[in-house]
């Protein structure tokens, strides 16, 4: 009884994708069927093309996320903890934030060429702001009474940060991370489609030129899977780090 209920709860989210897949296979008159897409995936894996493209895309995404995320987090903390730093930086950051980072592509190509740095720079810009804003918001939303309590109990600056500020801001930071991951994939797609000689985006553009629609669909599916994996990862982080919060325990 219990086990079957568990299985049903686990399986329900898969019903819609599976039905769509079946409908797709059945309804296709032109373009690739799911079976053709799977075949293309197998072919490209055997020829080592797919793993290489996947790895290049993944590497780019991670480097951009690490640098941009680190910057966003640090700026968020600096501005959240110091009123002067906030006065100094915040309005400039807000101004930059409102520039759609993809509008910078022509500039980025001029600056960096079509090499790695340009793409990493775009991803960096994309993930910086959601992490910045959510870190700042996380710090602002900490109950000031808790900070006061910490001070009364003699916590120094570092312990105040470790014990109160960081864990207090974490729920909001993780929301920022999930946002950032979404933007990260979006930026990657655009950057790789426009100027690249490897990565999934390149694979798709290339396949389009040779009218290999099965590979195009495969690339799109891969983006969906990567995005989903990133989200699962972020959720696992939330569940682990926010165990104390009843709202996340059964999420």
């Amino acid at each position, binding site marked *: 009884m219990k086990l079957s209920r568990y299985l049903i709860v686990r399986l329900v989210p898969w019903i819609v994708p599976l039905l769509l897949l079946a409908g797709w296979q059945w309804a296709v008159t032109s373009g690739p069927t799911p079976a053709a897409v799977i075949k293309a995936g197998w072919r490209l894996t055997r020829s080592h093309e797919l793993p290489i493209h996947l790895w290049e895309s993944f590497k780019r995404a991670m480097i951009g996320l690490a640098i941009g995320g680190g910057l966003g987090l640090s700026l968020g903390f600096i501005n959240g903890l110091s009123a002067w730093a906030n006065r100094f930086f915040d309005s400039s950051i807000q101004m930059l934030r409102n520039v759609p980072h993809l509008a910078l592509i022509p500039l980025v190509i001029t600056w960096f060429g079509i090499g790695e740095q340009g793409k990493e720079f775009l991803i960096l810009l994309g993930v910086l702001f959601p992490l910045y804003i959510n870190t700042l918001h996380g710090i602002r939303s900490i109950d000031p009474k808790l900070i*006061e*309590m*910490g001070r*009364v*109990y003699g916590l120094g600056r570092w312990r105040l940060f470790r014990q109160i500020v960081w864990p207090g801001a974490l729920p909001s930071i993780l929301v920022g991370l999930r946002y950032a991951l979404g933007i990260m994939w979006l930026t990657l797609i655009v950057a790789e489609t426009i100027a690249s000689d490897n990565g999934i985006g390149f694979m798709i553009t290339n396949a389009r030129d040779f009218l290999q629609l099965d590979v195009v669909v495969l690339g799109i599916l891969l983006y969906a899977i990567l995005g989903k994996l990133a989200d699962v990862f972020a959720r696992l982080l939330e569940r682990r780090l926010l165990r104390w*919060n009843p709202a996340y325990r059964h999420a």
Partner: protein
Amino acid sequence: MLQASGVSKSFDGRAVLSGINLDLGPGEIVAVVGRSGCGKSTLLRLLAGLEQVSGGCITLAGQRLAGLNPATRLMFQDACLLPWRTVLQNVVLAAPWPDSIKTAREALSRVGLLDRAQDWPAALSGGQRQRVALARALASNAPLILLDEPLGALDALTRLEMQSLIEELWLEKQFGGLLITHDVEEAVALADRVLVMENGRFTLDLSVRMPRPRLRGESEFVTLKERLLTHLLGY
């Protein structure tokens, strides 16, 4: 030990406290009763060093107090536990090195919550949270505990339990304390001295010399309580 002499405090030119004299020693509980907004919480914040006086001075063992008061620990109406730390970690935070874990466990067992040490604060009831806050204050080993309506948000029964717990601990540890409350009965039950505050100054000073634990039905208890109420209500 902690002395306030001629202390006044004003916010934006509005006087909240004026001419306050108070002497807190170890082993003595002083209660301050008064209506909301009479300035009693401000006095407590001044004594804790969370605010600076506008006039007069506060001295700790003869030294003028500057910044946070190292000899006092606070307990508020809200337990102020860190929700992201376990019950034990919350208490360890306040306990001095290097025996902090041992001290914390002792304090928790003293308030009867050692079996909840690994729980998150969110899993506790309001009364239990307040007991953890009390354990935290105990674990810090500060000679003076400042209590700002610590039982104000609890239901009547839990409040009675907490009052007798505080009294027991006080008899055992002989810490000194300032208890801010609007509950006259609580003041008479716990304090050695009850001060009434009205509009930022003390208007009544009563010693309570009843043996502990105090029975609320005793005639002396009732007389003191009536006297305080009559004064507060201005009959």
